[in-house]
């Protein structure tokens, strides 16, 4: 707000209004590119919202007042149980406000918050079915080490291993044409800047060598001044600096590099490709890439030395395989650092695992997509890998009724086929989609959640008390082979801990 100019009261009113606080819409999410065309719909729910969701209290809603330029029609806005809209156009040429229901994304967010899954760095599957695992994979995105976009100016630890935002593109995700366009438009125009950057790197290298040589010289010769009194104790320590000696990098100025020196340095860089690639990556701020094939598949291959040349530096960044995220790795979905929370059941006490969720079977196995997909809180998750009940060959039409529930749509089931699952972890993919990992829920946990513990099958004779619900475990520890021990019944108070 300008201090000198006086703002008209009307202008001040508009500036503080809701209409002016609506942010501009985000660009539409990109779909997978298929050269022969895609099957898509313009009315299908997008993978992430692009417009602000607006709601209004009921008293205003019945009058059509949504805080916009005009009131909205009552017939379409008052008869809904989800009164949330998104405004695509505040005012059009035809003097109408274009709006649509935003219940799809708003309710999905609400359901997600009820799920209570914390977001972590993506887990990548390599060729051969192994998972890429290191100290940065599967960690919460809010870890101090990972949640950074800071680029230290001095050469310190490799920050690109942990950063999530980069100025340059992810070359591995670019097509041939996109890469050539990037080269033409950006890279080739920065030749002079790169040369100066290399000169700077050369100067830094020279200074480092100078520092090392000076330190070695000081350690070799007897130290002077106050320190000489305690020389015997300090002499062997090469790291401690004697007072007054200029070993701090700030104190040594960058040496001037002549063109000839620079030329020699560049020639050396051409041989040392790893160093050259590192310089290029730093200059262009490229996000780290790692080829799935270049990673050793198992420790045996690594020991045998069956790895790529050292030029292919394997980045330990969790985004090396799939690309850096477009937003913060949490995408604003959840701000919790962990999913480890203890849920308390009023009867059975604290539960080891969270409440199981009934997921909808959106596409059964025999659907055209040939993949069992589940709908969890509005998000599509892939079914956990489970043993197939029938080894039916591809294209087999009629299967046994036992496997029908997951192979075909069940027309008689009211509400559709559902499956009880447990959420494990979640991460945001580089495309902006949410990857939710789920696993099949334990029948005992399902019984606790649905209050049907009495209907659980009784434990067999030779086992010690099964823990129904308490800590969720179904580990059965055999007591003895003595059949004289009476089987514990589910109504036994001991099992409920009451």
């Amino acid at each position, binding site marked *: 707000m300008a201090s000198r100019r006086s703002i008209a009261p009307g202008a001040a009113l508009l500036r503080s209004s809701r209409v002016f606080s609506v942010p501009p819409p985000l660009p539409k999410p*990109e779909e997978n590119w298929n050269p022969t*065309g895609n099957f898509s719909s313009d009315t*299908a729910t997008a993978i992430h919202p692009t417009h602000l969701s607006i709601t209004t209290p009921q008293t205003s809603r019945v009058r059509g007042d949504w805080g916009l330029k005009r009131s909205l029609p009552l017939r379409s806005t008052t008869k809904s149980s989800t009164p949330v809209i998104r405004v695509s156009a505040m005012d059009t040429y035809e003097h109408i406000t274009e709006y649509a229901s935003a219940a799809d994304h708003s309710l999905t967010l609400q359901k997600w918050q009820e799920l209570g899954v914390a977001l972590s760095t993506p887990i990548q599957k390599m060729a051969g079915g192994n998972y890429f695992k290191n100290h940065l994979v599967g960690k919460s995105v809010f870890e101090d080490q990972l949640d950074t976009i800071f680029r230290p100016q001095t050469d310190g630890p490799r920050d690109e291993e942990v950063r999530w935002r980069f100025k340059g593109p992810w070359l591995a995700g670019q097509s041939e*044409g996109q890469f050539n366009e990037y080269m033409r438009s950006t890279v080739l125009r920065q030749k002079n800047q790169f040369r100066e950057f290399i000169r700077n790197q050369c100067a830094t290298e020279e200074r480092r060598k100078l520092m090392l040589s000076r330190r070695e010289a000081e350690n070799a010769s007897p130290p002077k001044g106050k320190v000489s009194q305690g020389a015997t104790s300090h002499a062997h320590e090469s790291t401690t600096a004697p007072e007054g000696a200029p070993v701090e990098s700030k104190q040594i100025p960058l040496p001037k590099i002549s063109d000839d020196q620079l030329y020699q340095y560049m020639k050396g860089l051409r041989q040392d490709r790893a160093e050259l690639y590192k310089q290029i990556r730093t200059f262009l701020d490229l996000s780290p890439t790692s080829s799935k094939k270049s990673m050793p598949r198992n420790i045996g291959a690594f020991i045998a030395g069956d790895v790529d040349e050292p030029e292919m530096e394997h980045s330990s960044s969790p985004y090396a395989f799939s690309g850096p995220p477009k937003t913060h790795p949490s995408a604003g979905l959840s701000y919790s650092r962990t999913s480890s929370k203890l849920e308390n059941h009023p009867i059975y006490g604290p539960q080891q695992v969270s409440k199981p969720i009934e997921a909808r079977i959106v596409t059964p196995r025999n659907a055209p997509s040939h993949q069992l997909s589940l709908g969890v809180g509005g998000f599509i998750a892939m079914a956990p890998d489970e043993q197939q009940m029938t080894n039916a060959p591809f294209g087999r039409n009629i299967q046994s009724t036992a496997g029908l529930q997951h192979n075909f749509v069940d027309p008689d089931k009211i509400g559709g086929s559902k499956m009880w699952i447990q959420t494990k972890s979640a991460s945001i993919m580089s495309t902006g*989609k949410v990857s939710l990992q789920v696993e099949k829920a334990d029948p005992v946990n399902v019984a606790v959640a649905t209050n049907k513990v009495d209907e659980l099958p009784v434990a067999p004779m030779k086992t010690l008390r099964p823990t129904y619900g308490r800590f969720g475990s179904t580990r059965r520890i055999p007591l003895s082979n003595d059949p004289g021990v009476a089987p514990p019944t589910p109504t036994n108070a001991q099992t409920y801990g009451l």
Partner: protein
Amino acid sequence: MAPLGIRCANSLRQISKNTTGFRAAFSTSRTRQAGGSIEDLSKDNSLPKSTQSTSPATANRFPATTAPAVSQENRRSDQPLQSTPEASFNPIELPGARRRSPPGDSPAKPRPNSSRAFNLANLVGKTQSQQARKQHMEKAVSQEDVGKAKLAQDLTKNITRRFREGDVYAPHDLHWVEMTKFKRMGKPAHDAFDELDLKPLDNYRNFSMISEYMTPMGRIKHSKDTGLRPVNQRRIARTIRRTIGLGIMPSVHIHPELLAKMMRRAQARMARDRGQ
């Protein structure tokens, strides 16, 4: 292929003949009445119709109570539940049902065209009607399963949208209106030659690439099918015209090598399906 609505109604009609469930019984929906009014398959017209009401709504109101008790002779003509006569052969069979003999082959039941006057089955004591009822019940169960299975198959086949991991869905995404939109292929979002950094004219001899931009009748595709930007669309069109002019590409169909490959693939697929 019949539209979805008609196909579903066909399957429902088949089920409604055989089910004894309450939902089907008390339903007054059109499909149920349509199923009830089909009398061509219920060939037993021995009883006079004047004593019974012919309207399907009233006649089929309580079929569950009458189904087990009524024997074959007393079966009402307009009751669709036991309407499948022995003579009709159900072509759809469950794998487990193969063990059951098809209708007409049961040794206990004498063939209507048999010239034998003396039947061993009659000596055993089971009447023809009891046997037929047992077989009907057996068949009814298997046909119910088959009808349900067929409906399940049809409904599953109509889930045309390929849901991918991370997609967000709302109830309207599972509606058939939204699903039908996913049957139509849209034009590509990006220009293929820009993405691959290729020039059409440099690939004039690549007949696979050239044929991709031609229709099966040999016409050059419109840009709404190719998704190319105008410059590249003109380039590919020029390349196709030159290739045809050179004589190395036919003008009324795609390259014969590609036609041969497609035919070979189709034959292999048919052989694989037959062999299954």
